[in-house]
């Protein structure tokens, strides 16, 4: 059996005294794409944030092992260097920081971490332009400040672009489909599919099934009230579409 990329065991977490995650279990192996679906407030984005290392969450129980390491003990930048990537639900606008400069800095941090020589400006530009082409993006993206003045669709595409540049081993896509029209959704999905690799894994978090028409997951999990209440293959997403979340929730999981 292969080593899992990530193994989440009984993870519980609270924010300002309110428990959000109540024992999440999830194991993802290389080459797999998993989808987590769930209604608003089920804890989907909290799970993504905790995996990426955002402040403000208190881990009350459980553990997360990433490629043999205790993920929760690492700073966000260390996680990123180790290959964890979060595509943000709401990418942050950073006026004044040039996209190329930002990406070069990030990319070289990862190379340094791996003991590889840093790329100089020319080498990086060549590398990054190939990625722009791969995702059919406009090159002017590289000259613009990070996400500044971008439309919703441009921001999401930029997240996938960053993912293409940083080549994470484990990518989490937090509602990357939200706010996208069908064309943008196709472009983003194509990007994600292009980046799939047998030694990498992806976790797609979504509220709606429609993204999964384009990105076909190997496994689908339903998160409800801080727990994974049902897991299955890609057909589970279709089932959800028909029955809605209410039909999924076992009586035991419904809070009194």
């Amino acid at each position, binding site marked *: 059996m292969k080593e899992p990329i990530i193994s989440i065991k009984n993870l519980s977490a609270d924010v300002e005294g309110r428990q959000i995650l109540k024992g999440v279990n999830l194991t993802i192996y290389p080459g797999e794409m998993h989808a987590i679906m769930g209604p608003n407030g089920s804890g989907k984005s909290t799970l993504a944030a905790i995996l*990426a*290392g*955002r*402040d403000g969450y208190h881990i009350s129980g459980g553990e997360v092992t990433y490629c043999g390491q205790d993920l929760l003990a690492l*700073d*966000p*930048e260390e*996680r*990123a*260097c180790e290959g964890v*990537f*979060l595509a*943000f639900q709401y*990418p*942050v606008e*950073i*006026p*004044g*920081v040039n996209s190329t400069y*930002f*990406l070069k*800095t*990030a990319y070289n*941090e*990862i190379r340094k*971490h791996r003991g590889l020589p840093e790329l100089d400006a020319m080498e990086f530009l060549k590398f990054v332009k190939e990625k722009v082409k791969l995702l059919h993006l406009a090159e002017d993206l590289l000259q613009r*400040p990070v996400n500044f003045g971008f439309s919703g669709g441009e921001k999401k595409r930029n997240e996938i672009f*960053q993912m293409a540049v*940083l080549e994470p081993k484990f990518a989490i896509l937090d509602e990357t489909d939200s706010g996208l029209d069908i064309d943008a959704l196709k472009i983003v999905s194509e990007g994600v599919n292009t980046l799939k690799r047998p030694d990498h894994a992806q976790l797609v978090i979504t509220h709606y099934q429609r993204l999964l028409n384009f990105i076909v997951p190997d496994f689908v999990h339903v998160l409800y009230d801080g727990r994974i209440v049902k897991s299955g293959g890609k057909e589970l997403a279709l089932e959800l579409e028909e029955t809605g979340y209410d039909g999924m929730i076992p009586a035991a999981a419904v809070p009194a």
Partner: protein
Amino acid sequence: MNNMTETKPNVDREPRSTEFSLNRTELALSEKNANEPAWLLSARKAGFMSFDELGLPTLQDEDWRFTNVAPIEKMTLAPVSKPAHHGVTEKALGQFPFTALAGSQLVFVNGQFAPELSFLAPLPEGVKVMNLAAALATEPTLVEPHLCRHASTDTNAFTALNTAFFQDGAFIYVPVGLAVAEPIHLRFISTAQDHGTTAHPRNLIVAGRESRVTVIESYVSLSDVPYFTNSVTEIVAGGNAVVEHLKYQDENQQAFHIATVAAHCGRASKVVTHSIALGAKLSRTNIYATLAGEGLECILNGLYLTRAEQLADHYMIVDHAQPHGASHEYFNGILADKSKGVFHGRILVRPGAQKTDAKQTNKNLLLSDHATADTKPQLEIYADDVKCTHGATLGQLDDESIFYLRSRSIPREKARRMLIHAFAGEIIDRVRCVAVREELDRLVWDRLEQNQPITTNP
């Protein structure tokens, strides 16, 4: 608020310690300047009387309520009288910014012209770049219509003092339709060895109709004692003229720097000024922009970086006197330690100045819990079809932005610096002259790196 008269200075003040030395200097003044034209002598006299009446401002003066200039009383106030043996070499100048720019340079040491350090690049026929004292002698007809006409001595005691005592400064004249391609650099270096040494540089920039010129004033120091720079620059932009002006202030950490920039902008002109304040214990830059013609654009930018107990104050009055004028003020401050930033922006829209578009922003980034920023917008609008906006923000670095950068593998400290640099970049990017902008970017970056160790706020 809706009061068109200037704030009245407090005249019932205590006698000041400076008066005795100034009265003595008044005698010296009348003898030393005896060769000057009558119009200038009368301007000097008016300046002197005005200063005598106003005295140094106090915290009770509304326009000075955030900035205590009392320590300036301990300065000499009168300029150094004998030409200094300054000992500044060309090599020493090399350590200061904007040395490598290709344009003309005029160098002033402790307020006095240093011809041996200055040089002129090739200039179009008719363009004058020279020291003001020489211009008064050789180009009186070009100087007289403008000098002392735009920087008012009525309410500003420091302008009054400068007018009474200035010895020299730069004179730049660009005739109608000509363009000076390379920026002209006016360099003011202090080598003060005595506490309180005072310089009153006086500059006049006249850009004729449809002309174009870029001027940099830099204030730097080889001194390690407290000294006082009190400069006044008058800018006159004719119709359709394009003028870019940048004041770079990096005086030593004990110095007092008071500067006035008074710009008179003609019809359809474009005047851009930048004030970069990095040095001095206390600095105050007054910018008065008079939008005297229709359809012009006036942009005032500012960036101040302070640390320790520095104070950087910017005060401006933008006077929309004619219709269809646009003015934009963008000021960003990055304040560390116990330092303080002050921004006071007054926009006056006179009756008839319809279709005015006035915008003002002041953003302050506090890098420590002990840094403070005071910001005071003041809009006085006497026309009914205008657009005037102002906004001020005060805050620390955005946690979400830091997390975003960290989640992309950039370490926390590097992420912080990137964001601080970006905040400064919002202003630096507005500098149009590429060579100046690129050098300024490096200078500010270096300064932020230097300021960093004491500003780290866990």
